[in-house]
């Protein structure tokens, strides 16, 4: 049995809707030491995901995710297009070889996404990017899985970690992307990409309520 398409769809829709809903907020975050376009870029891309929603190829979960990845890569500009597109593409490739959308699959998808992001942008943890929210979140999920927590518990814990980790980027100096040009002035404000991950993870957790 292939991975449950409905589950993937539900998560993707939350991600897309959250990106669209938070256009202004994400843009403000990127204005502090960046160029303010992050919210706009994400929203314009995920808006198309939502607009094309009914027509997306649903042969299987992997194909569906791949189509979403193509829209993101093709339609989102700035750094976020390639970064988020690569993450979705790698996640899609993971799903191809999996049977169920369980905790292990989620961790594997996140691992693939993280590797893709690292490969595409050359960043690593601690350089004040969205990786500083995704990687700790992935670790929390893995740990709670081992402890045998419920899906809802895991989702909540993932969201909490993502939010806290995003908050922790405040004290970091940006080493990647446009914010890095401001040097030490980037210290003291949260990273826009990491914060977006926190907001999205929270929205996903709320779906389990």
């Amino acid at each position, binding site marked *: 049995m292939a991975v449950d398409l409905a589950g993937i769809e539900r998560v993707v829709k939350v991600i897309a809707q959250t990106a669209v809903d938070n256009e202004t907020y994400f843009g403000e975050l990127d204005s502090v030491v*960046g*160029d303010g376009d992050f919210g*706009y*870029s994400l929203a314009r891309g995920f808006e198309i995901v939502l607009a094309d929603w009914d027509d997306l190829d649903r042969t299987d979960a992997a194909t569906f995710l791949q189509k979403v990845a193509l829209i993101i890569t093709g339609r*989102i*500009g700035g750094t976020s297009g*390639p970064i988020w597109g690569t993450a979705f593409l790698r996640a899609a490739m993971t799903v191809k070889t999996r049977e169920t959308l369980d905790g292990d699959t989620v961790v594997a998808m996140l691992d693939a996404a993280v590797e893709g992001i690292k490969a595409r942008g050359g960043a690593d943890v601690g350089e004040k990017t969205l990786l500083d929210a995704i990687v700790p979140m992935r670790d929390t999920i893995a740990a709670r899985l081992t402890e045998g927590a419920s899906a809802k518990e895991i989702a909540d814990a993932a969201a909490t970690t993502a939010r806290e980790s995003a908050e922790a980027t405040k004290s970091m100096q940006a080493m990647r992307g446009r914010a890095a*040009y401001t040097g030490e002035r980037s210290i003291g404000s949260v990273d826009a990409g990491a914060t977006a991950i926190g907001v999205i993870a929270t929205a996903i957790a709320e779906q389990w309520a």
Partner: protein
Amino acid sequence: MKKFVNDPKQFVPEMLTGIALANPDTLRYEPKYNLIMRADAPRADKVSIIQGSGSGHEPAHVMVVGKGMLDGACPGDVFAAPPMDYVYETVKLLKSDKGVLLLVNNYTGDRMAFDMAKEMSEAEGIKVATLFINDDVAVQDSTWTVGRRGVAGNFFVMKCVGAASEEGAELDEVVRIGEKVNSVTRSMGIALTACTPPAKGSPLFELGDDEIEIGVGIHGEPGRRRAKIVSADEIVDELLGAVVPDLPYSSGDRVALMINGLGGTPISELYLLYGIAHKKLADQGITVARSYVGEYCTSLEMAGASLTLVKLDDEIERLLEAPAEIAYRVF
């Protein structure tokens, strides 16, 4: 926000429409990819030159498409590198037997979009080279790998590769020239005000009434440091002090000097800066042989200016002198 704009989301398409309507004979507009291209491109006997970058830097790059400059420009939205698709589709539209040269201002997003598009185009058998422009001395490149930014100095790279390709130079040769020009070009900018992206509606940063940002880029991002406003003389000292020693430019050199307006500074002030810089360079034994004063690479309506020096040699000077015809023009 006070701008001439309808729906902010249509800001870039409506601007591109204006460019196309103003130049019906020479330019073609492909709305799907924000692409402004020469009507007569691609030509089998000419390397195609393509720029991407974000919007908000006009006249760069959509208004410098034309004979002797770019074959096409496919910008992203304001301050956003183009989505990969735009670049890939543009390459396919402009592919030439002689090859395609992608000029990339050196930013993370731009590099990724162009690298991906290059890979995909090459997989289809298109001959593609990329050239990263990184003239901004405000940014040191030790700590982060993407390195220095590309700013107004990109004009000189575009002019020279545009002229060389127009003469029929091969891709390798065009790349060699572009890399040489980039290697002898250095820039630094200062902002007097922030700028407001149409879709954001408010300024990207706040500057006090007596404050300036030193070492700003061209995306409204803050600069390296903030300072109190000083006289034009001192500002030129600051800019030359950063730019001249960087290459370095030395006594006996012939240079091109550009004073580029960032969008909101009138040309009267730019010429005032030019005069000061010209004299100060002469005092150091550096001869300004070519002058460029005006708007070349802007940050929307930001008030401010950047100073660029290019060390000239006979080849560069000849290519800078070559005729060119673009949408950005007076007559």
